[in-house]
């Protein structure tokens, strides 16, 4: 898989208390994710928390490690794997589980907990993804959550990166994302109807 170098170039412009909306399509989501994570780990020497709502954290870790990335400075909060039997029986020590993607405040508190206990000097929080949370959460609650989420970490000088597939995200949530986020990395696919 080839990483998108333009993303790394764009990220050099952002500051620690930024909140970046990363728009991608359904087929390039992981490539875009990896293209954001690589410069955060290597160029900015950051660590952080990866909130995994789209797929199990093990799958993301394995895919990142297949690219030669070390995930030891990232703690994964897995919102998916508690939903099926045996999902939480994993080898990785840097994964914790939240019962369901509807427990949004618990996700926020777990993230804050891991940020408080990490040794990393600079941290990011990567939310993967808004459209996965939109499957379970009502539109107005999700919009409220993203507002709280972004402001909580901005206040703590933690970079927030929010992955989003626009055509699978409720319009009001999308509009609010445009309002709350300070930066936009747009790698959404062009859909020809």
């Amino acid at each position: 898989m080839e990483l998108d170098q333009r993303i790394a170039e764009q990220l050099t412009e952002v500051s620690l208390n930024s909140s970046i909306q990363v728009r991608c399509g359904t087929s390039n989501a992981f490539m875009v994710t990896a293209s954001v994570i690589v410069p955060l780990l290597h160029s900015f020497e950051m660590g952080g928390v990866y909130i995994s709502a789209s797929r199990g954290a093990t799958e993301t870790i394995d895919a990142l490690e297949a690219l030669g990335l070390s995930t030891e400075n990232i703690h994964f909060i897995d919102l998916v794997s508690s939903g099926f039997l045996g999902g939480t029986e994993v080898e990785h020590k840097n994964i914790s589980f939240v019962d369901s993607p509807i427990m949004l405040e618990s996700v926020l508190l777990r993230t804050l907990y891991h940020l408080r206990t990490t040794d990393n000097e600079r941290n990011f929080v990567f939310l993967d993804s808004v459209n996965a949370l939109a499957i379970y959460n009502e539109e107005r609650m999700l919009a409220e959550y993203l507002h709280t989420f972004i402001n909580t970490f901005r206040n703590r000088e933690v970079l927030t990166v929010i992955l989003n597939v626009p055509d699978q995200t409720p319009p009001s949530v999308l509009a609010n994302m445009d309002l709350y986020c300070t930066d936009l990395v747009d790698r959404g696919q062009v859909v020809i109807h």
Partner: protein
Amino acid sequence: MDEILRGGIPYGSTVLAAGTCGSGKTTLGMEFLVRGATTGEACAHFTATEPSVKLLENIRQFPFFDMGMVDSGLINVFDMDVLYSWLGLEKASFDLEDVHALIKAITDIVNTIGVTRLVIDSVTTLCYKIKSEQLIRDFLFTLGKKLATLGCTTILISEITSATENAHWSSFGVEEAICDGIIVMGDVERMGHLLRFLQVVKMRGTSHSRAKNTLELTPLGVMLTPMLKWGSTVDNKQGWG
């Protein structure tokens, strides 16, 4: 909690922490003592709901709790059953004389050790032995007043069956009236999942927040964040609980 209370529980207050089972009352109470013991305060915990050995076994799983604080005498844990036995109060119900003996025993311990932070877990279990509402009121009022005079800040843990808007914040309906502060803890059900919440209903001497907060028990102790407004109330039209 300090942020919600805009500074913390006022010195010498008696606070009722009322909550449903599994809402985190005991952990909150123990963390209150640990934070005090960390700064060298003498603390005491009277346990009526479970033996002290079991309490300590459960609480030591939390890294914020240091067993050394118990060993060094900063946190003193007392079994109410043992206290009853010392006082010859191994009976089904207490009369006025028994209540006064109990108050004297607790205040003597507080005075002797110099306790500045105290938790009684739970006042509900303790008051089951006091049959009259008036006697319960007298007991709690006198105890709270004496402890405040001694400079002791107290959390009285109360077990309730429901923490919804229409519920009482105490089992006997009198505890809430005599306390300086009331903290309610319970669960909000959201699509079949239970989220713990904490809400400060009253805290004399503070301009505290009255918002409902989601509570997580983490290895660092209790962590709180304001509960989402669209996720904290029952809205039948939308089907959210």
